[in-house]
């Protein structure tokens, strides 16, 4: 199936590039959605079966793949909305759709890969396809964003490669011939701790560029800012999961060795700094899209805190990622309507959003409560569990600091959101506002409802999957 999927999405991507008609694009989108859904269903049924040598749908891959599939359909829908309101040349639209398909394909394949080298290759492809999306507007700023994204991601991916080479060194000491995660996991006890430490440093730092963690988070912020909002939704949710997958799979191996404690320290430092950086920038940022992107850095920091703390934290971390991947796209989709209303990304130019678009304003308000993890948000549950795990592992002071930082983030986020919703806009000519149809907000409502539902009433199948994903950890 994975072979069919890869070939199918390549064909659909190429067809998108050459297909000039609206009806062709519509047909191809439906085809691709069907392909994506059938992949997710197939991998769910055939869990644990090795396909095509290099792909195994384990529990983690199945969870993230399902999330990806749910996100795909609104992303394609909002891409059509985007092009309806902002006309581009057919060639540029074709490029956009082809790159989106490539991005979704490489993300899905990176989840499923069971070999370090293969994961690496698909992560590289995500960089390339994402940069085509960031460059979509073809102006000076988007060029700058693209340049920085490619440059930082290339350095990061090189770091990951060096890390893989270090793993190879210690693997060869024991005559293990390959880099399958399962082989490494089975032989984890044999591997030399020194090389593993070195490898972990490189691999972790490298994947932070995708995961949006300190130190390499910067490229992702510019990317989410400059990409069109449907792609921003992809970059801010499922692509961050790819970075997490890369880190998590290697962390899983190191957790069976003597360096487990040491890796936890590294992750903890990076996580706390991520939350701290997010707080600092949330206070000063005036660009709505960048504000949403920094919120992603904060949430990845929290996820990593859960991983470092261990225990129930593992479960909470993955649950948090799933919920975050539904909540963040809702915000980005809503941003498209805000931008159309005010023609600006700056908070200063906005206001009275309730007056111009009631359905959209409700989404923004609800998304604010959900993303900042206030009850009844599902993210409240996962954040609470993360805090609980921190408390249980004795990081009391850290917990207090993090909670203070989160309070500041909620204040900063709220200040901007309420400005958009309720304050009076300055110098705003409301005669040109075209009210957005409420159907555009429908997908956001569904996504936000999913966050609440999955957090408060987690379905048994999902709980089982998450437990299975983390039970290999020590």
């Amino acid at each position: 199936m994975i072979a069919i999927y890869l070939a199918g999405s390549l064909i659909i991507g190429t067809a998108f590039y050459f297909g000039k008609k609206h009806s062709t694009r519509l047909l191809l989108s439906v085809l691709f959605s069907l392909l994506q859904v059938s992949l997710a269903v197939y991998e769910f049924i055939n869990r644990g079966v090795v396909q095509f040598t290099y792909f195994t749908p384990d529990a983690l891959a199945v969870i993230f793949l399902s999330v990806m599939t749910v996100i795909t359909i609104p992303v394609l829908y909002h891409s059509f909305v985007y092009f309806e309101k902002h006309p581009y040349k057919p060639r540029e639209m074709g490029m956009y759709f082809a790159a989106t398909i490539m991005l979704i394909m490489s993300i899905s394949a990176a989840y499923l890969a069971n070999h370090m080298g293969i994961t690496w290759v698909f992560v590289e492809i995500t960089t390339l396809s994402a940069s085509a999306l960031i460059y979509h507007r073809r102006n000076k700023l988007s060029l700058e964003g693209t340049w920085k994204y490619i440059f930082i991601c290339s350095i990061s991916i090189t770091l990951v490669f060096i890390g893989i080479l270090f793993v190879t060194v210690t693997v060869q000491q024991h005559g293990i011939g390959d880099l399958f995660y399962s082989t490494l996991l089975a032989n984890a006890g044999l591997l030399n701790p020194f090389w593993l430490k070195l490898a972990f440093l490189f691999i972790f730092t490298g994947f932070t560029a995708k995961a949006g963690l300190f130190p390499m988070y910067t490229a992702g912020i510019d990317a989410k800012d400059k990409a069109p909002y449907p792609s921003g939704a992809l970059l801010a949710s499922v692509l961050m999961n790819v970075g997490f997958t890369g880190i998590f799979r290697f962390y899983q191996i190191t957790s069976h060795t003597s360096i487990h404690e040491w890796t936890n320290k590294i992750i903890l430092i990076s996580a706390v700094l991520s939350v701290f950086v997010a707080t600092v920038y949330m206070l000063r940022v005036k660009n709505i899209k960048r504000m949403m992107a920094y919120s992603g850095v904060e949430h990845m920091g929290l996820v990593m805190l859960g991983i470092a703390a261990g225990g129930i934290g593992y479960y909470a971390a993955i649950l948090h990622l799933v919920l975050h991947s539904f909540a963040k796209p809702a915000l980005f989709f809503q941003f498209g309507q805000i931008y159309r209303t005010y023609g600006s990304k700056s908070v200063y130019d906005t206001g009275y959003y309730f007056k111009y678009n009631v359905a959209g304003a409700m989404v923004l308000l609800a998304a604010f409560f959900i993303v900042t993890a206030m009850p009844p948000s599902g993210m409240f549950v996962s954040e609470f569990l993360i805090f609980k795990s921190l408390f249980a592992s004795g990081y009391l002071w850290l917990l207090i600091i993090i909670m203070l930082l989160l309070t500041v983030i909620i204040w900063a986020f709220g200040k901007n959101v309420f400005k958009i919703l309720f304050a009076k806009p300055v110098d705003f000519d409301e005669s040109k506002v075209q009210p957005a149809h409420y159907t555009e907000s429908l997908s956001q409502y569904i996504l936000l409802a999913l966050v609440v539902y999955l957090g408060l009433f987690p379905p048994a199948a999902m709980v089982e999957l998450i437990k299975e994903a983390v039970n290999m950890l020590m």
Partner: protein
Amino acid sequence: MINLLLIIFTITLIYISMANRMMTYIRIIAFQGIVLFGVALVELIEINIGNLIFVLLETIIIKAIAIPLFLKYILDRNRITREAEPYVSNFVSVVIVTIIILGSFFLANAVSDTHVRKIFFIVALSALFTGLYVIITRRKIITHVMGFLIIENGVFVLSLAVGSEMPMLVNIGILLDIFVSVILLGIFADKIGDVFEEQDVEQLRNLKD
């Protein structure tokens, strides 16, 4: 033979730290490609023939010919001034790169391991850090790309060190090489020349909070 080639490669790193003109940078990068061709030839002679040809073609055609020509084309097309314009003086650069090489030497000695030959490790680490150093201290966007190419060469040496038993890794590393160099050079250095008046990193400071 291998030792000689790798030492020559290390000397080019010192040379690039004090080079003044953009053309010298390009020539050094081309020369590094040729040296790596030699290293790959000696090192990988016993792996299967298809892989060997792939690696050798990549070093000689991509690293030693295509990329330098492309860099030259970008220089001419965008009328980039020929000075490299480093932030620090050449003397300081030479001292720092020497320290980097010495540091890698001691680091590699500390990490004695029978499965990695020390000299590969030293050279690879030196190239990595020198590349980063070049990126940090040079002002032009195109020199950042060159710094990245030096890092790539370092990674190539490192992958050769473990590559004789795992040819697949070498091939993946080469994929990285080709992908990134082509994308970085081909599309963006070219476009940045069109959109921005000067090829200076100072121009890339508009995206911020």
